[in-house]
């Protein structure tokens, strides 16, 4: 055993927290190494010094203050709270808005970006957006748009991830002077975006009108 290894194990050796094998190896090393033996002695003194510190008594005023504070916690709230239903309700409270918002955003997005219709045959009067022909109203500022999910989201984290990485990439073209919209699908992305997501994206990544 090297001195470096022994030095690392000395504390656990003192605390009887080593396996029998390691304990024997440290003991054999200490028997032949005066430097590590000195470290062992000094570490043992530190442990003894700490354990001999005068124990402090908690002042009585502490409990009095605690008692005053905990009596302010409403008793009925504590008693009525049912922990078995609380997590389920918290989950539902998160999922419902996330699912609604996700549906509103993703369906138009998938249709707009991929040029497919999720509800029946595509509208023949509108050219498919992803057919290789330039779209006069929308442009992608990044080639790596990824659609993480379609339809619903199971959590607000998934929603935020889609927002953070995809939604903001849609920007209005300078040429048209119009903001990105999906009017052909009856929805305005800006409004949906503003209504639901301005709060969860950082200011510098917000969609600029």
């Amino acid at each position, binding site marked *: 055993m090297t001195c470096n290894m022994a030095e690392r194990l000395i504390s656990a050796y003192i605390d009887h927290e080593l396996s029998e094998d390691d304990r024997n190896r440290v003991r054999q090393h200490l028997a032949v190494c005066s430097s590590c033996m000195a470290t062992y002695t000094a570490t043992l003194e530190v442990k003894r010094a700490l354990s001999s510190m005068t124990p*402090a008594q908690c002042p009585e005023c*502490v409990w009095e203050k605690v008692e005053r*504070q905990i009596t302010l916690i409403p008793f009925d709230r504590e008693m009525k709270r049912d922990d078995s239903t609380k997590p389920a309700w918290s989950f539902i409270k998160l999922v419902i808005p996330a699912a609604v918002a996700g549906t509103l955003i993703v369906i138009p997005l998938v249709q707009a970006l991929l040029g497919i219709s999720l509800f029946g045959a595509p509208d023949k009067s509108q050219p498919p957006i992803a057919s290789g022909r330039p779209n006069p109203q929308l442009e992608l500022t990044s080639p790596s748009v990824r659609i993480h999910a379609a339809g619903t989201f199971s959590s607000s984290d998934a929603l935020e991830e889609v927002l953070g990485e995809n939604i903001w990439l849609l920007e209005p073209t300078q040429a048209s002077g119009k903001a990105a919209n999906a009017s052909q699908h009856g929805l305005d992305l800006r409004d949906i975006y503003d209504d639901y997501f301005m709060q969860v994206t950082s200011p510098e990544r917000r969609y600029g009108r």
Partner: protein
Amino acid sequence: MSNEYAIARPAQPVSKAAEFESLVRRHQNSVYNIALRMSGDPEEARDLTQEAFVRAYRSFDSYKRGTSFDKWLYRIVTNLYIDELRRRKRRPYIESLDQRITTSEGDELDKEIPDMSSNPETVYDRDHLDAFIQDALDSISPEYRMAVILCDIEGFSYEEIAQIMGTSIGTVRSRIHRGRRALRERISPYLEERSREVSQK
């Protein structure tokens, strides 16, 4: 550590507040002692202890009756103390030891700085020894300090400390090793000096 009475198991149905008070009174000295060793300041220790018990009361419903109350409580205590002390350290109050004190009359005085190494009368004083060790404890990181306090002052095993601190036994071993090494560098010269003084007497 012997926990023969550390398991909360009321003999008869009692109110939540009464059960909590009984457990608090049983553990308040330990909780305060850890707070004092972590913070090094009695007033801060009182605030930390008070906050720890209020937090424990708020989550008392999550405590499973029949399990070790002290480990459950010390987990709350550990998280609170480490977070609080780290937060407070970000805005430290810095004062030069050489700075002169201005009295209410406008006079200026030099500060009286205790010199632990030169005065043999104070070297042997228990309070000064405690103060010296406390000073060394204050110099190490809160995680190392808590691990060393739980081991050397409160007497918990590495496995118990791992449960309390929510970490692995390997991390506990490393924290105690590093913490004691840092303490050794500060305390050992003082302890050697002290033992020399004792042998010369």
